[in-house]
């Protein structure tokens, strides 16, 4: 693997980890809307805002390592990403109000605003991701629609699986249905849309995505039939992390499909190696710390 590919994958990993953290937060927001706040209240803390560091890091990686493309990306994506920036600020405001002002009861408007801002952030960044894959806004192509649909379903499914678990029968089913719908879109409709639109993405990552979805659906069928007690949330997280990476791999050799190649955008040959080694050293520590953070949140103090 070349330095350029490794740089692209590193950025994708950071965005994927951020997406996963966002999914859990979106799950909390949804549970507030659907009246399940008693079970998920302990996950609601302003400390979640620190997961924004993954977003910063993903952005910094793209901006620093693929700096030759920045001017183009700024012109193309400013309006799309500004929605995410507004949502970031608005979510922080809503979290501060809900957490410190109304710790005992959540007003409906607050829960709705929290959900709206929570969803707007990953959707804004996914819309930017669609632009990189198709060189078009997401509403201009079937592939764009399918990716956005899979992002929405993926966020909701992962969020629900994480927060509802598989113990409560009513909630278990809604999480499972969303999980299956997500994998159907990711494994079937999205590849079909890519073939139909003929945008010329690499095939093997799409095949891997397809296989991952089939395996995920098979596992779901085993869970539904009661043959295994495997926790689907872990597999869902794995697919959630793998999907952006695979789509980025499918877009190779381009950063912006058919417009800017990765090698042309890459402008950090002098220090990219050091950066990637640093990331490789620090990333396991970060994941370990994140695990400890989640454990501490779950454990009563």
């Amino acid at each position, binding site marked *: 693997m070349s330095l350029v590919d490794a740089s692209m994958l590193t950025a994708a990993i950071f965005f994927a980890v951020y997406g996963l953290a966002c999914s859990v937060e979106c799950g909390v927001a949804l549970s507030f809307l659907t009246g399940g706040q008693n079970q998920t209240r302990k996950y609601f803390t*302003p*400390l979640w*805002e*620190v997961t*924004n*560091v993954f*977003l*910063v*890091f993903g*952005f*910094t*990686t*793209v*901006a*620093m*390592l693929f*700096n*030759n493309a*920045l*001017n183009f*990306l*700024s*012109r193309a*994506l*400013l*309006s799309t*990403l*500004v929605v995410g*920036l*507004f949502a*970031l*600020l*608005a979510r*922080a*405001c809503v*979290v*501060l*109000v809900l*957490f*410190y*002002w109304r710790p005992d009861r959540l007003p409906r408007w607050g829960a709705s605003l929290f959900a709206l801002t929570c969803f707007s952030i990953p959707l804004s960044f996914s819309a930017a991701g669609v632009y990189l894959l198709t060189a078009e806004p997401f509403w201009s192509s079937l592939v764009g629609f399918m990716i956005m649909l899979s992002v929405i379903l993926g966020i909701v499914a992962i969020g629900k699986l994480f927060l509802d678990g598989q113990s409560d029968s009513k909630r278990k089913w809604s999480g499972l249905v969303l999980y299956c719908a997500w994998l159907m879109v990711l494994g079937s409709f999205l590849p079909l849309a890519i073939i139909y639109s003929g945008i010329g993405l690499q095939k093997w990552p799409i095949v891997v995505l397809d296989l991952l979805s089939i395996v995920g659906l098979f596992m779901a069928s085993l869970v539904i039939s009661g043959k295994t007690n495997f926790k689907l949330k872990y597999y869902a997280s794995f697919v959630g992390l793998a999907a952006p990476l695979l789509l980025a791999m499918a877009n190779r050799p381009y950063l912006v499909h058919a417009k800017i190649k990765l090698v042309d955008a890459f*402008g*950090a040959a*002098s*220090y990219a190696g*050091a*950066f990637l080694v*640093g*990331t490789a050293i*620090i990333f396991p*520590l*970060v994941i370990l*710390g*994140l695990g*400890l*953070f989640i454990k*501490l*949140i779950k*454990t009563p*103090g």
Partner: protein
Amino acid sequence: METVAAGRRLIGDTLGFHLFFVLFGVALPLLICGLEAYSIWKKRPAARQTAHEWSKALVVLFIAGAISGTIVSMQFNLLWPIFTSLAGKVVGLSFALEGFAFLIEALFLTIYMLSWKRFTPLQHWLCSLPIVAGSIGSAFAITTVNAWMNTPRGFRLDGNGNPVDINTRQAVFNPAVGTEVTHSILSYLFATTLVLLAIYAWIAWRHNKGRPGPRLQRLMLGLASLAVIFGILVAFTGDRAGKFLAKNEPAKLAAIEGLQQTQTNAPLLVGGTVSGSEVKHALKVPGLLSFLATGHFNGKVTGLADIKPSDRPPVIVHYFFDGMVAIGTIGILIPGLYLVFRRWRPRIAHRKIMLKGLFVCGFLGVIGAEFGWLVTEFGRQPYVIHGVLRTADAVTQNKAVIGLGETFPLLYLLLLALSIFALRKVFHPAEALHEPS
């Protein structure tokens, strides 16, 4: 030009807002870590309780800072792509280091906050060390980028304006790093200490009618001593920064003092009003500028006449510089007076007027830090990278930026108001009125 003005306004607002949280984000972890170490070493539960209170405030400030930091990072990339592209090639490693440090700080802060009652005091204190390393490390890394913008080194531009012969080490450790990093980090410590002192002065004034209890007195004594020490260090590094400017950024120094002609025995202008490129009605202290800039009263200081008109910074920086110096002086004098009175005239030390003075110093500390950065940024204009890239050439060509100038500041104000509201909910400095049970 519309996009340039909008871009400048937007990033200016964002950075100004971010700085408010940054100075606490950098300084508070160090102060909390020190206080917790003191509580373990001297077995003082009161100090540990105070550290806990401060850490609750740190969380709220850190969250708002993390959000504004995310916005800063994205705005740099989206609004100033030409600048970020060039800087990314040369000092991109500093941006990355800042990200690493921020990641460590954020992660350990969450663990630190969730483990007050779960870890032993020593284990808990050990958790604070990576937070301190992260906060100081990220401040260091990002200030090296600003220092590089002032004294760009470690590359040359080819015929197409692309940087070649890049030497990252030379770029990161450029000549301005030493003075700028020490001056800025010390000023954050100075400002934060003044703010904490102001809060406790307010508590003493409000709750004790000028007779604070022993715990509150100990806290005020410690914070006033730290404020004086940090203030003197800031003044010392500021003096070094002035000498550095005279040698490496003469245009900035000339604009700060509104000095028209290159001259020896150059006067220092105190106060006055800026009219065009001149400072009028100011108090002139003969030779002092030469002395501060070169170490000799007859030293030669470059004037604006020797700078190309298209390269001259706006003389409005004179206001910011004077404001910064005045605030720094007041910030040393009032806590210093408090310490003197407390030692020899304790009754005067806790009079209303003294406590009010200390309270005002808290606001001034933050304004002083903001003024300091305004001097740095306005003083480098019309360049964003000194002598290399003009601000007007660095902005995005996306016209969408024009419509954003109004909306972001409104959200910043809302976030600031909510942060203060959240601080009032979680941070209870009045606990310092009582000894812990």
